């Protein structure tokens, strides 16, 4: 698989949104898990590469969901199960 990103993916990300997004949206966000923290939604899980991350953020934008935080937490150890 071609990786324009110099760092090997996938990486785990943690994305925090304002408001509660129904769990059924998980497909829309490439299978990230959806959890809640008070009035916020946390999308968590591995994201294949930078391009996938930007694609995901655009989806967030297009739903008019205020974005509070994006953080990369850890490497999944190079295991790639997204094909």
């Amino acid at each position: 698989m071609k990786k324009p990103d110099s760092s090997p993916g996938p990486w785990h990300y943690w994305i925090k949104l304002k408001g509660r997004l129904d769990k059924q949206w998980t497909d829309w966000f490439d299978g990230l898990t959806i959890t809640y923290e008070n009035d916020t939604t946390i999308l968590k899980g591995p994201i294949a590469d930078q391009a996938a991350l930007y694609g995901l953020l655009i989806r967030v934008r297009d739903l008019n969901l205020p974005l509070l935080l994006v953080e990369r937490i850890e490497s999944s150890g190079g295991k790639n199960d997204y094909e």
Partner: protein
Amino acid sequence: MAIRSSKNKYSRSKIPQFPLLETKLYVPTPPNTLVPRPRLIEQLNKGIKRKLVLISAPAGFGKTILLSEWIQKNEIPVAWFSVDKSDNDPLHFVNYITAALRTIKADIGKSAQDLLKSPQLIPIQSILINLINDAMSIPKDFAVVIDDYHLIESKQVHDIISFLLDHMPQQMHLIITTRSDPPLPIPRFRSQNQLTEIRASDLIFTTDETTLFFNEKLNLGLSLEDISLLESRTEGWIAGLQLAALSMQGLKDKSGFIKTFKGIDRYIGDYLLEEVLSRQPERVQYFLLQTSILDRLSGTLCDAVTQKKDSLQMLITLEKANLFIFPLDNERSWFRYHHLFSGLLRQRLHQAQPDLVPELHHRAHEWYLNNGLKYEAIDHLLAERHFEKAADLIEEIAGIDWDRGRESKLLQWFSALPDEYISSSPLLCIYHARELFEDGDWGAAEMRMQEAERMLESTRTRRKGASSDVLTQKYEKSKVELQGRISVIRTMMASYKGDIPKIIKYSRQALKALREEDLMWRSVAATMLGFAHGWSGDGNLPKAEHAFSEAKTISEAGGNIFTNLLASHSLYVIETYQGRLKQSKEKFQELIHLTEESGLSRIGVAGSNYAMLGYILCEMNNIEEGLPYIKRGIQIAELGRDTITAVGCYFNLIKALYYKGDLTGAESILQKVEKITREFTLPPWMSHALAATKGIIWLAKGNQDDTARMIREQGLSIDDELSQRREAEHTVLVHFLIEQKRIDEADQLLKRLIKEAENNNRIIILIQLKILRALAFYKKDDLEHALDELGQALSLAEPGGFILTFVMGGAPVAELLEKILGMKKYWIDKKYSISRAYVKRILSAFKTRAPLKTDFGLVEPLSEREVEVLQLIAAGFTNQEIAQRLYISLNTVRTHTKNINTKLNVHSRTQAAARAKELGILE
């Protein structure tokens, strides 16, 4: 390219019609529930005086509706362009901008559209400049709206917008709506007060607007308390308020609904959509969900997808109910959903009926195919995951696409197609490589080409679900030709790198392998081969001529007007360099006429046709007629912001001024070119030409010091390996050595240069070299050989009618020509095969122009006193003696000598005397 039909009579491929074009240009009309927004309209009215209005806010903030209201209320003509993802291709994008501008003035962009018919080679800037020049003809202020600009990700398209903003005429204004700020030089426009921004905080509904919307427009009769609750819950988000309104329609206890609303902490869009949907009759719900997969909706398309018969009626009903649907034309044959709304619907469809989704796409692709709309069909085929059929269609479209301008979606499709479908078809690999190359991803392009080559070499070709034998046969037949296409891509790569031997190698391979009918691929290969042998390449002119004439024939057959212009121009330049001035003069005249007729005369490259014609006229001693052509060429190239062409035209101007004897003028143009090169890097062949031009002018001025410096700086020596690129510089070196009376060294280099020029038929330079050799012999008092060389130069030059090249040789050449005239007729005829009439014509040009004897480019004429001083200097008096003789102080003499040196551009008393004699100031 998506413009409907080509008027071109040569057009070969059947171009699918694009009835959807207008839908992207349709100016939306405000809905009947419009809440007027005078404060924002005022902001727009003020803002439109600036270059750019940026309306930047998330989905559902009423950006488009605001503009539709403004357009209805203001007087300024507006062009509208709704962007979709396929507009990420620069050519495609420009095509739509052109089409949009045409809604304001129908004759705009004619030549831009002609240019767009060309698949490659045209600098996109040329097209834009054409468009900008056309837009200047719109007499009053107008605006161009680019809606949904966030869909643009391509840097090239962002560059186009930046370019437009920097160069568009004053009366043009750009309005961009987007969900995220575009990567444009926004801060610069802000600081120059050229930008008006309308952002989410401006767009949200105020309490008054919310009240007006719910209670006057929709007559819902809500209390102030309810309204403020709705407002705080939606934070003024208009789509949210609209969804809320739809949810409440027909509800008795609206207040109760609003209260429940308070406790809901779900994503509000999601929640409200559910509410809205649940209020609709079941058949409406189904309709909305099933048609959500479509980007655009028409009655029959929706019939096909929903398998019902009343879809058009349904669409009109939905529009009346304000269900987030907008017409895309006046006839109401096409509609689209609000993007946010269709996004929510799609999500719901995927959850509720995931199995139905491929089936819906299947129905959509069939409808598109039945209606001849292959491009849209491919999108649905890919969504349906019917890759086999998608691959076949992409293969077909990629084949015709290049012939009629690049279709943008190819790269997008290739990335949606699983690798195995591409890597099992050599043809798809080649097309993918071509797109990747044009997109700048050379590594990936190379990999695809290698894949294709491996497949073509191996006897077995595998492809999922198909018999390998059949496929082997399919590509076996066209194996050679496919290899030819790979060579074309390799040629393009080599050309970007300026690797001339590789260009020659691959383009030859390509031309050998490609079928005669494979016009576009052949024309690219032939043009590249021509350049590789032409003035910017190895200078093998007969080969360049052959290649360019093939490129010209192909372009004519293919009706490709731009490549035809390029090939014709190149061909005639090559003819000129081969000394056929008379023929090329007529051909350039004809070409200029053609470009003026087709409107192509305003693209930068066309400027060089004028400059070449002007140069030819000057060479034939028609300077007064030629100069205006050169100046026109410069004007066109500069207007077209085509720096390379402009510099090329300036070289012609310098040469013409030199011929005219206006060396001061020539030097000031040289300085202008120098200034250009400080901001713009010339290609190597051009910087060599610039150095040589300087040398020519300096030598003519007798400025040997600067010439010597140039020779040093350019590292020129008589032992250099010779190449066409450095030929002009080497010629200057020869001339310099002759001036320095280093005849043997000069001749050593001359002989080699002559051989090179002869081998490659570079007649124009050969004539100069032979004249120089005649001068070299003349300096050695070897008149016999001098005459011999000049005779050869004359016989090479007579068919073309060169005049001024000889005149620039100065008095020795005149003397030699007189001697030739004095010879017996037998000698002139037999030995040189030239006519006496020709020699006489050159000699009379000497007399009428009195070259370098009258107007030798003194910055300022010498004063009477300075001439007196100069006479004494020449007579060998010291400064002290001069002071005494003229009754002036020593200091004054020094001032005079200093001024004399400056005016004559020399550095010593001896040089001053010599120069003054040369110029005829002193006897």
